[in-house]
């Protein structure tokens, strides 16, 4: 039986359990007047039964799927001849792979000898038995849970409280997924980064001026020792982020001011969704717009002015990144401006301020903390942005403040370090994790700072 069918059967069973539980609760109290006789509404008794039918069965199901292959392989290894059991872990793995491929009818490496085909047959038999047992066990658990719950139904049973408790547990579980994932990512990056810092001293990584991350393939290779000074990368990131913010902050802020204060309702209704479309363009599209349209234009313009401009300039990448961030800045600034109580606006207008005086002298100062918080969030977005810089900023790790030169960023280097066939224990690939850790730390700090500023500001008026 397929897993899908099993899940379908479980779902049907739980629906049946719902109606049975509900019917039982209604039957226990006769008459049309329900009030006071049942502790909870009849539906809750139904949910109570259905949950007890479904949840334990699902638990069994997921445990089974996570343990099944391990158990089968352990059994398989036990049946192998002693010679094969003594193989090293890598070779044993290869052998087991071959067995599984043979069983599934895929191509295998080497010749299918009798040992191999015997094992494959055994593997198929185990899998088959496991599936059959799974169906029986799961349905038994579902039936048992449902029946037990059904028998427990009693007018005094606090079904609503129990159901709500289980729902609460589900909600907590759902919200902890994001947190656990974050912790997992941080830990994995952290441990890889620590391995990197065993090979390269942390001071060289943080303060070194030279970035050329190659490692030797042969011991006697020329230029075998790489340089892992990340300063040029951080400088490049900073340069591009600065350019992006120089574009995004004034434009976004002015957009927000116009939309919040000057535009008529119909203009606002048109422009806001359009801005949101800008926010919805995939960054890879911005990337080739930057690389194919903006960068050549910047170079031509620069040359016309007699300037030396690289074809992959920080200016082009930063400019397009700035355009990408405009909606973020404008929508956060718009929120901050709208959060200023209209009493402020009325007060200023009532004293005879013009609209622009009201804006400049009362509303913007009052909204400033919120706007600053929004800008910090935008900066962290710009620092972490990858696709645009991969396509438009180039790979040359120049330590420069000249926006016409090509620079590279932390994110670009992470991508290039990990793309392609790599050993995963060389300093070169581990450097990516160290960079990732730095990037994560910086953006996390900016986010925390930004959110704190935004929240502090909100408390002021509510």
């Amino acid at each position, binding site marked *: 039986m397929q897993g899908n069918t099993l899940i379908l059967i479980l779902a049907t069973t739980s629906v049946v359990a719902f109606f049975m539980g509900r019917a039982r609760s209604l039957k226990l109290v006769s008459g049309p007047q329900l009030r006071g006789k049942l502790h909870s509404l009849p539906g809750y008794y139904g949910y109570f039964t259905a949950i007890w039918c479904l949840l334990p069965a699902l638990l069994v199901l997921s445990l089974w799927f996570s343990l099944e292959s391990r158990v089968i392989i352990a059994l398989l290894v036990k049946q192998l001849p002693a010679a094969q059991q003594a193989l090293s872990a890598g070779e044993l793995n290869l052998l087991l792979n071959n067995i599984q491929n043979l069983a599934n009818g895929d191509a295998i490496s080497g010749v299918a000898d009798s040992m191999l085909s015997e094992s494959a047959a055994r593997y198929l038999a185990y899998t088959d038995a496991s599936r059959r047992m799974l169906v029986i066990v799961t349905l038994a658990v579902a039936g048992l849970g449902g029946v037990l719950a059904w028998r427990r139904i009693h007018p005094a049973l606090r079904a609503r409280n129990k159901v709500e408790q289980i729902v609460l547990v589900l909600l907590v579980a759902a919200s902890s997924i994001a947190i656990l994932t974050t912790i997992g990512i941080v830990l994995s990056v952290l441990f890889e980064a620590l391995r990197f810092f065993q090979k390269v001293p942390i001071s060289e990584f943080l303060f070194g001026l030279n970035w050329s991350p190659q490692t030797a393939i042969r011991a006697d290779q020329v230029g075998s020792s790489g340089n892992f000074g990340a300063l040029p990368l951080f400088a490049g990131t900073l340069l591009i982020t600065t350019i992006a913010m120089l574009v995004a902050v004034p434009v976004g802020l002015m957009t927000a001011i116009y939309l919040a204060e000057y535009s*008529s309702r119909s203009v606002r209704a048109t422009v806001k969704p359009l801005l949101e479309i800008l926010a919805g363009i995939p960054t890879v599209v911005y990337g080739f717009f930057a690389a194919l349209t903006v960068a050549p234009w910047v170079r031509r313009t620069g040359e016309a002015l007699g300037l030396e401009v690289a074809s992959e300039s920080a200016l082009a990448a930063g400019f397009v990144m700035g355009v990408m961030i405009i909606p973020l800045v404008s929508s956060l600034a718009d929120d901050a401006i709208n959060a200023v109580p209209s009493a*402020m*606006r009325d*007060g200023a*207008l009532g*004293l005879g301020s*013009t609209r622009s005086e009201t804006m400049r002298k009362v509303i913007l*100062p009052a909204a400033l903390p919120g706007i600053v918080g929004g800008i910090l969030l935008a900066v962290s977005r710009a620092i972490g942005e990858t696709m645009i810089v991969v396509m438009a900023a180039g790979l040359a790790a120049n330590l420069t403040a000249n926006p016409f030169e090509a620079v590279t960023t932390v994110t670009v280097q992470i991508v290039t370090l990990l793309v392609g066939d790599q050993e995963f224990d060389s300093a070169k690939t581990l450097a990516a994790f160290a960079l990732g850790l730095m990037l994560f730390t910086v953006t996390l700090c900016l986010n925390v700072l930004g959110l704190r500023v935004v929240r502090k500001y909100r408390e002021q008026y509510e």
Partner: protein
Amino acid sequence: MPDRMAKANVTLPEQPSEIGKTVGNIRSANPYIVAENVNVYYGDNHAIRNVSLEIGTKEVIALIGPSGCGKSTFLRCLNRMNDSIESARVTGHITLAGTDICSKELDPVALRARVGIVFQKPNPFPKSIYDNVAYGPRIHGLAANRAELDNIVHTSLERAGLLKEVIDRLDEPGTGLSGGQQQRLCIARTIAVDPEVILMDEPCSALDPIATARIEDLMYELAEDYSIVIVTHSMQQAARVSQRVAYFHLGSLVEVDETNKIFTNPRHRLTEDYITGRIG
């Protein structure tokens, strides 16, 4: 002027109960603001219906009436604050010392410097006490130098009865004051621009009785120099501070008269019902 007054007095029935025609005396002996046939629409909603009213020079007039009767809307017509509401439309004529203030050519910014407004909820700017009061003089260029500005700020705070309490902490934020102090700060801010008329939109409804009493005392003093129009829900307050009372009902001006006449001998059934507490 006298013939119009006579006409208004003669045509009135003894205890009218219909709305539409104003009872009492809409005229003032020495009018400063004259509103003629003012109508206000919010979209399709006819919020003010054909209101005519004169407001005297250095007079305190109270606008009373049940919630939603249009008294605040009428007040906001007097300094064009309704302009900032997109759907609002105002018809009729309002003159301020002879100037038509409804005309398209008139700059509402200049008008609002002449007709100040104090709102229901104290709304000091998130700036220092000094900067709150100095805001108006600064944007209108009323002070040539710092000394003059200091002088305006101190005089205004003094007149609002706040100077003694805040003289040591002019640099602290105005939002840190108590509710009553904030409202007096807002009054100081308004009189710092040296307006001709002060509009007050329920200035005490967010304040405790002691703070209210202080604001009312202040109104007596201010009435020596300014015309004051106050919207209030408190009939006691209207009786204490005003010389004339205008009763609004469902967007119409039902009755206007001297305060003691309205409260002792209302002529319109609706006015009587309201002041005796039968509607409200």
